[in-house]
Structures are given as C-alpha cells and as structure tokens.
C-alpha cells in the first residue's frame, strides 16, 4: 500500500484485463437491470449505486487501451482519462457501495459477471491509493499481527483453554499428520467461541482427526476484500505452508464467507499452483459426516427458523444444499426466504464493508432489504453460517429494534449432537 500512485493503479488495472472482462464491457447496453438486483440501489434509490456504474474507471481503461476504436477516440481527445479525482470519487462506490455479493452477476441479461469485475477493479484502486482507511488498517494488522482484528495466538490459546475446561475435551494444536486442519476467523475467536466448542464436540463424536495450527489459524483474508493480490497471496501462503508442513489432508474453512472464497477459490491462483491438500467448508464436512452416519442428532428446534445464505459460501461458493440437509436434521418448522440459495440478498457487510467504519450509515440503510425479507416470514430465529453475516445481522436487527436470536449452524448441530458417554 506504500508508494501508491495513479501509475501503479493503471498498471494494476492493465494486469487485471482479460477476455471475460473485455467481453463484459463490450456487451453492456446500460439496460439498468443490475441495479434492480443490488441492495445498494434498491434501498437507496440512488442510481450511482448501479453495479455497472461502479466500474466506470476500469471501463475507461478497457475502452481506451484495449479497443482500436477507443485508442482512436483517445487520440482525437474524445474520451475522458482516468484521473486521481475520478478514482477518489469512485472509491466510495466500489468499496462502501459493494459487498462483492454477486447478485448482479446472476441477473445481467448479457451475462456480465459484475462482481468478478469489481473484485478485479479494486486491484487498481488500492494500487493507486484509493481504498478506505478501515480496510487498509485491517490489511495492515493482518500482515503484521496475523489477524485483521489484531488477534494473536495467546488470545486463541486462552479461548482453547476455556473450551477445554468447559467440555473436558482436548483441542489438538500443531498435531502433525492430522487429517484436518481447522481455520478460524478472528470474529469467531473473539465473539463466537461457541464455534470452537462445537467443532471439538462434533469431531470427538465423529472420530475426526484434526488440529489447529498456532501459526496459521486465521482464515480471513483482508487482501481479498481490499483487492490486493500481494496481501492476499501473503495471507494464503501462511495457511498453505503450515498445512503442508503439518501434512494434513484437508483444510477446513470456517463459518466465514470471504475466507472460503480466499482459501478455496482464489488461493491456488494467488500462489500459482494447486495445493497438496483439499479445502472443505465446515458445512460440507458436517454434511458428509451426516450422510455417512458419523454424526447423529436428537430432538429439533421448536422455533420457526430461516437460513441466511452467506453470499460467498452459497452463491459464490457452491455450498447450496448442505446447509438445508443439516437444518432438516434439527428443525421442525424451517422456512426459506423468498429469495434464497443463489439468489439470496446480502446482509450488507461483506466484501470489506464491515471493516469500513465510513460505510456504517449506508450499511444500516441497506439492511432494510434483509429486514423486509425477515418481516415476510414471521420467524423466531435466524440461522446462518458466516460470523461476519451474523454480526452484521445482529447489529441490523438491533438498529431496527427486531428481537431475534442469530445462531451459527455448526453450533446448532452441536447442540443436538448425540454424544457417547465415556
């Protein structure tokens, strides 16, 4: 992030240009349909939040440098250049006004994957020095301390001790040759230690050989959010080298949306090679344990429940049916939201928005979308599988004075787990 200049930004934009991006820009006819899929437009009615508009600086680079006609127009002075002023103005749109949720990519009539474009355009913004202070700070802490929230291993060790005392179980740390290495998000360590306890109990019961690494336990990746491949690569590399050192067969991505995108989909491309291990999302693993009969549950939740699909796990991650299979085990009155699965609406805090204090007012405003989805259903409890969504939704519910517990799916499964008594 040091030495950021417009020139570096332009180079980063150029590095991100490829055939998909060029086909998307070539195809846009400004029909405006993407706006209707974006909560930042539907909840504000401000057309500047139209998804494709957030890409205007990147579009100019494409037109002026990657089309012959655009080059001619530039020579004749008929195009507008990309300037510091332009990037400064657009910074708010591309960071505060987009969670990379990818809903727009599902509705564009010509097929533009707009969130893919925004993820790439952020590379140019951050290289030119135009990224929100909040996400810059989180990235800095992730690189220097090892966690965007500044959580160091002693904090995790303390939580481990608590959980061990509460459950009488041992949480394996730095065990070489374990099958699974579990990652955690800082938010789970600090705000939702129930997750760690749930893992310990479920894995004990299912006989899963697992470990936590004291050196690479952090799953989140601020580099993905700010749009810096350099930062993202460094953070992914820490996990990869530790997983390969411990010779694990699998790395488990926790209940965190963008962590899954980072380690599962972007990671191998960032380090330039496939891993020597597989990455599974915790819900994939739990569903496998369920399907193979290694975990059983008893009793069901009496509450009327719904599930908030975290964008990066479901729409952008492909973990669609597993949460439903798991919910079916432990609920008796489950109902899907009107727009669910790959068409679910974002909580409003993904893609780095929750780390960006400046965006808070806007984030609360667009939460109205989730609120109206919930109002429609008349449910008692909301279940989700992303610590970030969970915190954002809790804040939103409080802001709009809605009383509703928000629960993580893994811990809900653990609550109903049939455990052998020793």
């Amino acid at each position, binding site marked *: 992030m040091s030495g950021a200049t417009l020139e570096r930004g332009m180079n980063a934009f150029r590095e991100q240009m490829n*055939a998909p991006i060029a086909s998307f820009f070539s*195809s*846009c006819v400004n029909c405006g349909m993407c706006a209707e899929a974006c909560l930042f437009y539907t909840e504000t009615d401000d057309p500047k939040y139209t998804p494709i508009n957030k890409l205007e600086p990147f579009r100019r680079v494409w037109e002026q440098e990657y089309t012959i006609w655009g080059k001619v127009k530039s020579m004749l002075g008929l195009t507008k250049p990309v300037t510091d002023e332009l990037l400064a103005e657009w910074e708010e749109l591309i960071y505060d006004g987009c969670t990379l949720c990818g809903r727009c990519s599902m509705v564009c009539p*010509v097929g533009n994957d707009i969130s893919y474009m925004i993820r790439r355009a952020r590379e140019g913004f951050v290289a030119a020095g135009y990224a929100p202070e909040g996400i810059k700070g989180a990235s800095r802490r992730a690189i220097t301390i090892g966690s965007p929230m500044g959580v160091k291993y002693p904090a995790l060790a303390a939580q481990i001790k608590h959980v061990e005392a509460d459950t009488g179980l041992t949480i394996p740390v730095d065990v070489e040759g374990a099958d699974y290495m579990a990652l955690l998000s800082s938010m789970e360590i600090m705000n939702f230690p129930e997750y760690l306890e749930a893992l310990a109990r479920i894995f004990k019961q299912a006989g899963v050989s697992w470990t936590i690494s004291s050196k690479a336990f952090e799953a989140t990746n601020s580099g993905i959010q700010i749009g810096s491949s350099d930062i993202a690569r460094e953070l992914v590399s820490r996990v990869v080298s530790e997983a390969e050192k411990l010779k694990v067969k699998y790395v488990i991505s926790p209940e965190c949306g963008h962590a899954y995108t980072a380690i599962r989909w972007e990671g191998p491309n960032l380090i330039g090679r496939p891993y020597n291990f597989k990455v599974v999302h915790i819900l994939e693993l739990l569903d496998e344990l369920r399907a193979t009969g290694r975990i059983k549950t008893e009793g069901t939740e009496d509450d009327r429940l719904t599930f908030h699909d975290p964008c990066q796990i479901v729409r952008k991650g492909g973990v669609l049916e597993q949460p439903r299979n798991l919910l079916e085990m432990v609920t008796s009155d489950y109902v899907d939201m009107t727009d669910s699965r790959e*068409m679910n609406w974002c909580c409003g805090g993904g893609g780095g928005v929750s780390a960006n204090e400046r965006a808070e007012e806007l984030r609360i405003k667009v939460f109205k979308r989730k609120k109206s989805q919930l109002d429609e259903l008349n449910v008692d409890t909301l279940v989700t599988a992303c610590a970030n969504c969970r915190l954002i939704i809790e804040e939103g519910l409080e802001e709009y004075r809605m009383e509703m517990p928000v629960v993580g799916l893994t811990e809900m499964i653990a609550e109903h787990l049939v455990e052998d008594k020793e």
Partner: protein
Amino acid sequence: MSTPTDFLLWVRGPGFDIALVIFIIGVIIRLLEVLVLGRKPDQAEPRGGELGPGLRTVVTRTLPETGSFKRAPFTVIGGYIWHIGFFISLFLFVPHIELINATLGLIWPGIPSNLVDAVAAVTIVTLIAMLFSRLSHPVKRYLSGPEDYLTWLVTFLPMLTGYLAYHRMIDPYPLVLGLHILSVELLMVVFPFTKLMHAFTFIIARWYNGAMAGRRGVQS
C-alpha cells in the same frame, strides 16, 4: 447522384459494399480484441464443469430472473418486443429474404407482408417508448451517454424508413427506398464501434459467466 434513381443505385451498389466490408472486418477485429486477451488457467480444484453450465447460461439468461423482472417489467418486456420485432422485420420480410438469397444464396420462408407491417409498427412504437424510458428512468438516464442515444437512433432509422418505404409515404419511391438502405448501411458502419457489438459478444459474456459459476458448482 443527381436523381433519386442515381442515389438508389449508389446505396445498393458501392455504398452497400463499403458498409458490408466495414461491418464484417470491424466485427472480426472487435471479437479478436476480446478473445486474444484470454485468461489464465484456474488452479483451484473445480467442483463442477465449465462447458455445460457455460452453454446453459448462454441459453437461460434469455429469460429474466423473477425478482428483477418484477422490479423492471417495462425494460424486460419492451426489450423482448423490439428485439423480436426487429428480427422478424429483418429476416422474415420476403423482399429481405430475396435480397439475402441473391447475395448469399441462402433462402428460407417468409411471412405475409401485412403481418410484417403490423410487427414493424409495434416495434417502432416500442422503440420510441424505450427511448422515453431511457430518458425518464432514473437508472437508465443516469447511465446513458451519447453512445446510447446514437445506437438507439441507428437501430430506429431502418425500422422507420422501412415502414415509410413499404407504405410509399415519401415520393418518389427510389428516394425512400434509398434512404432505407442508407439507414441500414449507417447501422452496419456504426455497429462494430459501439455497444451494438453486444449482439455478438453477449454469447462470450454469458458463457464466461456460466462457466466460472459452474466451476464452483453454481448454475448462474
């Protein structure tokens, strides 16, 4: 080009040839500009295939997603009507088929001229309504620049002049027919340099969208 007949002869002869060359070469260059950029091979272990989901998205994206359709029905329905009307007028009007047969040797059955006439009238009215929508809808007005209005105009003019020529509403006939052909040539010349290119590139865009989602196990 002192008389309407001379004008008609020019637009049917050299004028058409020039426009056709610009159109074909322009479209090929624009498609190459996109495709030569390529993309890096994806190193992440795939959950699903690319080809099947990619091709499926090329087809399925023709239908709108329910929620956004409800929010913007006019854009969707208007879009369908004028696109379909435009293609019916272009490819199912018997004199057009005869022209294509004479130049390319391809032939297919047309539909009665009075039916094409009705379709053309609906298309023209819809195109005008779409223009009003672009000028008045907050999102579309905000997004639109000169190119959006230029592409509207060069799409609209062939429909309008074709309608005028069919009904012989301008005298003499060679003049209005010549204007019709000229407007088509204008469309062909503008086509490769503007977003009209979406008529070709949408297939590439939809394929990438579907393929990239398909790899992750999602049908987009």
